[in-house]
C-alpha cells in the first residue's frame, strides 16, 4: 500500500477469475429481512397451536359472498370482492381435505427447507373457494388425486412459516 492511501480499505478483497479475457468478481450477499405476517398472524400462530385458521366474508352487501362466503385458505384479511374485513374461523377437527393434484419434488431451489424428494400436494376442502398447497409428511406415502388427507401440525420446534402444517393420508 502506498503512503498516500490514508483512508483505509475495510472490505474483503473480491475473488477474481478471468473468463475469456473478462474479469469476473465474486460479490457475496447475506442479509436478513424483517418480514411481517401482518393481519394474517392468527393463521401462522394457529399452526403452532395445532389449529387451522381460515377467513370468510360475512358482508351481506358483498356481490359474491352475500354475507355467507366460502372459506379462504390461504386466508385473506380483506375480501377481494367487497373490501370488507373478513371473519376468522377455525376449521373443525378432524380436518379432512381431498388431493386435487400433486407432484413429486425431486430437486428444489437453493435453500429449500424440506428434504427432497417429497410430495407436494394441492388440497380441496368442502365449502372453500381456494385449493391451497401443502406437502405430505411421509415421502413413502404416494398420493392419488381424490385421496383424503388430514393435517399434521409442527407444534414442537415450529418453523414459524407455512411449513408448520403438512398432511398425511387417511
Amino acid at each position, binding site marked *: 500500500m502506498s503512503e498516500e492511501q490514508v483512508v483505509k480499505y475495510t472490505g474483503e478483497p473480491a475473488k477474481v477469475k478471468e*473468463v*475469456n*479475457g*473478462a474479469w*469476473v468478481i465474486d*460479490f457475496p*450477499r447475506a442479509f436478513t429481512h424483517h*418480514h411481517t*405476517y401482518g393481519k*394474517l398472524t392468527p393463521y401462522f400462530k394457529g399452526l403452532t397451536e395445532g389449529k387451522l385458521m381460515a377467513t370468510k366474508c360475512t358482508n351481506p352487501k358483498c*356481490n*359474491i359472498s352475500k354475507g355467507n362466503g366460502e372459506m*379462504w*385458505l*390461504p386466508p385473506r384479511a380483506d375480501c*377481494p*370482492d367487497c373490501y370488507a374485513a373478513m371473519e376468522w374461523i377455525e376449521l373443525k377437527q378432524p380436518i379432512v381435505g*381431498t388431493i*386435487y*393434484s*400433486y*407432484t*413429486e*419434488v*425431486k*430437486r*428444489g*431451489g*437453493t*435453500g*429449500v*427447507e*424440506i428434504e427432497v424428494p417429497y410430495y*407436494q*400436494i*394441492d388440497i*380441496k376442502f368442502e365449502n372453500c*373457494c*381456494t*385449493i*391451497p*398447497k*401443502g*406437502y405430505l409428511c411421509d415421502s413413502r406415502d404416494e398420493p392419488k*388425486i*381424490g385421496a383424503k388427507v388430514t393435517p399434521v401440525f409442527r407444534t414442537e420446534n415450529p418453523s414459524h*412459516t*407455512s*411449513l408448520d402444517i403438512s398432511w398425511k393420508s387417511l
Partner: protein
Amino acid sequence: MIKFGPGNLRVPKWTRPVYMVSAGMTDFRKKYPEKKLEELVLEAVKMCVEDPKLKKSAQEVRDMINFACYGEFADHFQDQLLCEAKVHDYLGLDPLFNVGIKTGGATGGSAILMGSSIVASGQANCCLVAGWERMDEVDTWTGNFYISTAACKDFETRLARIYASYYAPMARRFQQVYNLDEKVRAAVAVKNRGYACSSPFAQQPGKHTIEEVLEGPVVCDPLRMLECCAMSVGSAAVILCDEETAFKLSDNPVKVYIAGGSHTLRVSDRRDMEIPLLPNEDEHTYEKLYKDIKSSDGRWPGFESFLAARFAAYLTYQMAGIENPIEELDLVELHDAFTISDIQTYGDIGLTRYGEEPSYITSGDAYYGGKCPANLSGGLIGTMHAVGATGIFSAIEVMWQLQNRYDEFHGADEMWKKFGKTKPTDWKSLQVENAKKGLWVSHAGVGSHVTVGVLEKGW
C-alpha cells in the same frame, strides 16, 4: 374477479395505429461473462438501428427516437436497482424519458404493450422497446430460488423454491382431466429444440427423441429436465412507430395489436368461474366440458387453463378483427416455459377448443408446413428465456417471418459467425411462405400476467 362488469370487458381502442419497424437481438447463452449487461443491450439496439432494410441511417434512426420502454424481470438477477437508467445512459439516449416495466415472465410482452400505448396515444411517435436479463451471476439452483420468490413468499415459495413444482401439478391435473398423453408433452420439447437447430441465437438446440425426453431426469414429476426452458443471458429490442414515421423508416413495417390479462399470483386462489368466450365460440361450445369438469371435481380455469391468456386473447382478437384464430393466423410464437404451459395455452387462445389442446400437436397443425406452426424460433425451451427480453424475442421472430426475412437472420453465415458459431451443414429454412398474420404470447409464472399480441403485414 369472477364476475365481470361492463367496463371490465372494454376492448382497447387506440387513437392511431402502431407499427413495429425493426428489431435486433443478441444470441442467448447460459453464461455470458465476455460482455456486461449494458453492452449486450447496446448490441441488440445497434442491430435494430443498423437494419440495412431501413430507409434511414443508424444515426438518423437514433435521432428519431423519442421514448424508451425497458423490460427487466428481476432486480435480484442483475443485482442492480434501476438498471434501466444505467442502460439508457449507456445507449446515449438521455434526456429522453424512459420507463422500466416488470410483469414477471410477461415483462417483454408488457414492455411492447406499454410502448405501443405510448405511440398510440401520441406521447411518442418512435419508441424504443428493449428487454434483457442476466441470469448467470448466480448458479442455476439459486436462479431457481430467485424466480420462485415471484410466487407468494408467505404460502408458496418455501415449497420447493422452484417454479417447475408449481407447473407440475398443472401437468398432473391436465393429464388426468383432459387425457393428455405424456408423449404429446415430450413432442413439444422435441419440436422446439429441433427448430432451435436452425437458429444462430439459440442456447439449447438439439435433435432429441420423445423417448429421450421421457427417459430423462425428472425435475418435479411429471416434468422432465428437457421439458423446461433455458435460463439465459441476452437482450432483444424493437422500434415501434406511428404510421407516418413507420413508412418513413421502412417499406415493410408490421402492424401491432396487443392486450393483456392477469390472474391470481397463487394458483390456489383461482375460483370457479365461467369461460369468457372467443368470437368462434358460443354458449353451447362448452356444455360437455362443464359436465366433464364437474364430474372430475374440477373448476374453470382451475389448474388446466389460464384466465389471463384467455382474457388477453379475448381483447386482442377484437382489436385485430380475428374471428377464427387457427384459420387466420399463419404462425404463432408461444411462451413454452414448460411443455405443459405451452399446451395449456392452445385452448386459451383458441387454437383448439378447451379440452382438445393435444390435437394441435397430434394433427400436425403446430409443425412447420402445418396449418399454423408454433415456435419456429425454437421458443423458450430451445432458444432462450432471458426473461425481460423473452416477449420481445418472440415478437421479433414473428415480425421477421411476416417480412419474409427468416433466412436473412437465421441462415446467413455471418449471423452464425457473429456469435462464434458455425452454421450446421444440414441447416433448414423455417420461413413460412406468404405469412400475413402471426401471434405471440408473453406469460408470467403460472399465468399471473399474460399478453397476447398480433402482428400483421402493414404494407
